[in-house]
């Protein structure tokens, strides 16, 4: 059979962000793949060196259009460690609350994208409608739907009244009902399973060698979650499950993400119940003492790592950002080997591409 080269990207209906794949296809069979990154490289690491810490928070928030809050959280956590300040515990709770809301939003968005890519428009609409509930909550709490700009070095910028807390708990109950419907679809719906089972399989050994993080790793049996394994307040005081599956295919990733969404709703509820009183921020100096720090958090897609080095001025000397998508992208060539052309969309959705994150 003749070989043809099918370009996927930089612009293609399958991709939501520019990245390029060159697939060598025989009939309907993909034999080889090559990937090209860098279409949305904005040089954020370099820009960080030329802005103050205050400005950097807003810059780093724009690395990702989905998990923006977790980036600023990681950055602030690192800078606060350099400064040696201890945050009021209410601030930590509110920060984590928004992180968990963001996880729900990210996973629902991802489910919608997967559904769209396998031609399941209804689930796409449902998932994105439920995500809209989360976005509305976040907009009300922080002022922005995606870019919240609530983190400051030394705390957060928003507070929660008691009335709002009660309505929020009610909204979360409704949300859980909706998420459970979607979870049921993932568990039982026949055509969705037909498309996602046994596709893009990664073994535990591959996962470990490729240093894969997040739901992709957990779907292959790697039991790792920084919220649990590096317990920091407030997560050390909360109870939650880390869903792990052994199958390692796209279906397992879907299930893991949906189960995580349910867990996140539980976490939000716990945090609202345990929300301690007190101030939401402390005053800190604009200059950060010289030093270096590695800050890690569990983003919706996995571990986010920031390396921050300060030279004592109000601008960082180096900010290194490692986003989870970059690690997961490395696995794509081995996942794309010997798959059906129709499964390419499933495989690419399965790793939860966030090219803006990977390119920075």
């Amino acid at each position, binding site marked *: 059979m003749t070989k043809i080269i099918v370009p996927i990207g930089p612009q293609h209906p399958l991709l939501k962000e520019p990245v390029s794949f060159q697939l060598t296809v025989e009939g309907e069979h993909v034999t080889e793949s090559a990937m090209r990154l860098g279409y949305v490289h904005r040089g954020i690491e370099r820009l960080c060196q030329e802005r103050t810490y205050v400005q950097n928070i807003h810059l780093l928030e724009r690395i990702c259009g989905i998990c923006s809050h977790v980036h600023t959280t990681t950055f602030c956590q690192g800078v606060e460690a350099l400064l040696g300040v201890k945050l009021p515990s209410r601030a930590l709770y509110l920060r984590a609350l928004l992180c968990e809301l963001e996880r729900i939003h990210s996973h629902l968005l991802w489910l919608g994208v997967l559904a769209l890519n396998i031609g399941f428009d209804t689930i796409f609409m449902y998932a994105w409608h439920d995500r809209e509930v989360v976005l509305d909550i976040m907009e009300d709490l922080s002022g922005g739907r995606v870019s919240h700009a609530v983190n400051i070095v030394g705390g957060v910028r928003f507070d929660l009244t008691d009335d709002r807390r009660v309505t929020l708990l009610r909204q979360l109950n409704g949300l859980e009902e909706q998420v459970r419907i979607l979870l*049921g679809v993932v568990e039982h719906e*026949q055509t969705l399973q037909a498309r996602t089972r046994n596709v893009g399989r990664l073994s535990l050994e591959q996962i470990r060698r490729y240093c894969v993080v997040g739901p992709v790793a957990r779907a292959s049996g790697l039991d790792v979650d920084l919220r649990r394994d590096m317990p920091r307040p407030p997560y050390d005081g909360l109870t939650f499950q880390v869903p792990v599956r052994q199958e390692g295919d796209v279906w397992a990733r879907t299930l893991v993400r949906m189960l995580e969404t349910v867990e996140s709703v539980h976490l939000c509820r716990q945090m609202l119940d345990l929300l301690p009183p007190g101030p939401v921020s402390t005053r800190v100096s604009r200059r950060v003492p010289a030093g270096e720090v590695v800050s890690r958090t569990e983003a919706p897609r996995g571990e986010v790592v920031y390396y921050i080095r300060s030279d004592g001025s109000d601008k960082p000397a180096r900010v290194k950002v490692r986003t989870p998508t970059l690690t997961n992208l490395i696995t794509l060539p081995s996942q794309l080997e010997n798959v059906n052309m129709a499964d390419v969309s499933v495989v690419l959705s399965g790793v939860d591409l966030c090219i803006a994150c990977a390119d920075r």
Partner: protein
Amino acid sequence: MGFSLRSIVYLLPQVWRVLRAGPLTVQFPFAPPELQEGYRGQVVVDAARCRGCSLCVRDCPAFALELEREGREEYRLIYHPDRCAYCGQCELSCQFGAIRLSNTFTRATADRDTLTRVLVDRRPSPPPLDE
């Protein structure tokens, strides 16, 4: 693989439920957008409170604010909405509560030149307002 009649038509009951509940979306350009109370929109300024300290200009991450200073008390605070990221940092940086992001939705415009706005004008002879 669990194969049952229910798994073949799993979504049917849900689809009927949604059908009965009616549409959930709004027709945006024809209907107003749904805004939350905490929404951070248009930048407004209380000119009387502004002291021209330029703290907001220093902290603005998008370089959307500009202070043209002609003397100690003579200055203009200029705002470029085309650069603004609506992050609200200026609101936080302002020590006098002069600048605020209001709960108003700002629509997109095709005309960039009309965007630049003078928020505070403290020049010796400000031009007449009716012009």
